[in-house]
């Protein structure tokens, strides 16, 4: 096992390239890898294809800052704080390519990648215009039963970014609460970068292997980043910072407001 502890800056610079397919961990504003997202914005990565199920401020910020060119998603929203306005503006202006899914189909596209397969079938989807307009879904017939199913094209992330609770210096990771699709995203990707609340002793991992949720073989870089999900929640450590999300929702009402927010809270600040 090799040690893979990096700084935020080093990890993003070395392991995320312009044009990469990037799967982003967390759901809504829960355990979103926000420190990594802010660092991607600071380094001005371009043309990313971002992938996730139900996303919020993380996707909206990457889209607004011009880092994302394509978005595979089932929902992008700030929940009770309203519409993700950068997502909305750029989608309406045709400045981002949308690959709209249902939750299950976008997850299935990652499951296919994790299994090393070009596609997987799902039941459902027919009759929805999401299916009709999608370039990632098409009808197939089961060779055994004749049932008509929707084939979902695999999405193979170059890199997955997640925030977790603990890891050792070799990248044995412990997610200690809601798993979301984070484990699956790590399985599916070529590289996975994880920020953690705590770096723990390797012996601790050896003593309790049942607590390891992602073993080191899937992990490329570990970053010690307490509050790395902020303003999203990290279960057991902190809840989401509603005041900060509210301030963000207010700022993104106009492109100028968003630019000010970026300069004040992202570009001129370090995580």
């Amino acid at each position: 096992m090799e040690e893979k502890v990096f700084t935020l800056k080093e990890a993003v610079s070395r392991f995320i390239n312009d044009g990469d397919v990037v799967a982003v961990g967390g759901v809504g504003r829960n355990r979103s890898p926000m420190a990594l997202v802010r660092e991607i914005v600071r380094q001005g990565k371009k043309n990313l294809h971002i992938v996730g199920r139900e996303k919020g401020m993380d996707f909206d910020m990457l889209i607004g800052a011009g880092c994302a060119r394509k978005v595979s998603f089932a929902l992008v929203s700030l929940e009770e704080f309203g519409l993700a306005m950068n997502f909305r503006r750029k989608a309406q202006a045709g400045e981002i390519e949308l690959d709209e899914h249902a939750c299950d189909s976008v997850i299935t596209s990652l499951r296919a990648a994790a299994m090393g397969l070009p596609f997987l079938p799902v039941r459902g989807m027919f009759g929805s215009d999401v299916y009709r307009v999608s370039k990632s879904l098409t009808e197939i017939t089961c060779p055994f039963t004749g049932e008509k199913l929707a084939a979902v094209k695999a999405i193979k992330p170059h890199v997955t970014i997640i925030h977790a609770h603990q890891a050792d210096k070799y990248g044995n990771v412990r997610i200690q609460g809601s798993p979301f699709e984070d484990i699956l995203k790590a399985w599916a990707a070529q590289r996975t970068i994880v920020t953690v609340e705590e770096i723990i002793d390797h012996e601790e991992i050896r003593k309790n292997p049942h607590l390891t949720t992602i073993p080191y073989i899937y992990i490329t870089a570990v970053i010690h980043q307490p509050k790395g999900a902020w303003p999203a929640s990290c279960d057991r450590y902190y809840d989401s910072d509603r005041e900060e999300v509210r301030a963000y929702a207010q700022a993104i009402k106009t492109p100028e407001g968003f630019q000010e927010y970026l300069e004040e809270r992202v570009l001129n600040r370090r995580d």
Partner: protein
Amino acid sequence: MTEYTVAELMAVSLAREIKDGDRVLQGLYSPLPMMACLLAKNFHAPNMVYFNTADTIDPQPKEVPFSTAGPALQERAVAYIPLWQTFDLAQRGDLDLIFLGAAQVDKYGNTNLSVIGPYEKPKVRLPGGAASAHLCALMETVIWVPRHNARVLVEKVDFVTGQGHLPGGRDRKEAGIPKGGPRKVVTNLCVMDFEPETKAMRLVSLHPGVTLDEVKENTGFELIIPERVETTEPPGKEHLEFMREIDPKGVRELEFH
């Protein structure tokens, strides 16, 4: 009579749609479905199974979270279950009910959370339908509408994100999704279901104090009005006490500000 808010009335009306033993999934930004699941489990449906976007089974939160995938929905749960495994259950036919929100609902219960206007050049890009295009094909749904007006309740949705009864009648069968479909629509004014033959939306009950004219004026299509229209049963004292105890900060009112 005990005072209650329309959010509380809607939460109780949604809860009534959960039968004992049902397996129910609550999604993201779903404060009323979250309250409905907790109410059902605590009162009339102790054997329902409560799945949610915090990826847990049967949580008993001391205080409900604002984000309905938030950490509080892990409290006293029996297990974690990643959502994709819950979807696997749905695909096998082992999930019974989901609650759906929407920007538009049409008279056949099709829902839109994708775009207003043409898909490629939308006037308004909406958030997306989350699980709906998959799950609406597989099981029964109950739609909740906090603002019943003619812009939400429309003749035809601009885009079918979640499959309702499609153009109506037998069309789900023809589309290859024979099971399920929308069962009820609960709004801030009334409760509606679907006429069995045509699958068109039909009034069931008016909330206390709401008039028939008010519902007609705020509906963008011709609603079927049955001979007998009931009054929606208000929440009981025990329901109100329970909701106020687990939700002291008013998460259930989020969609009504």
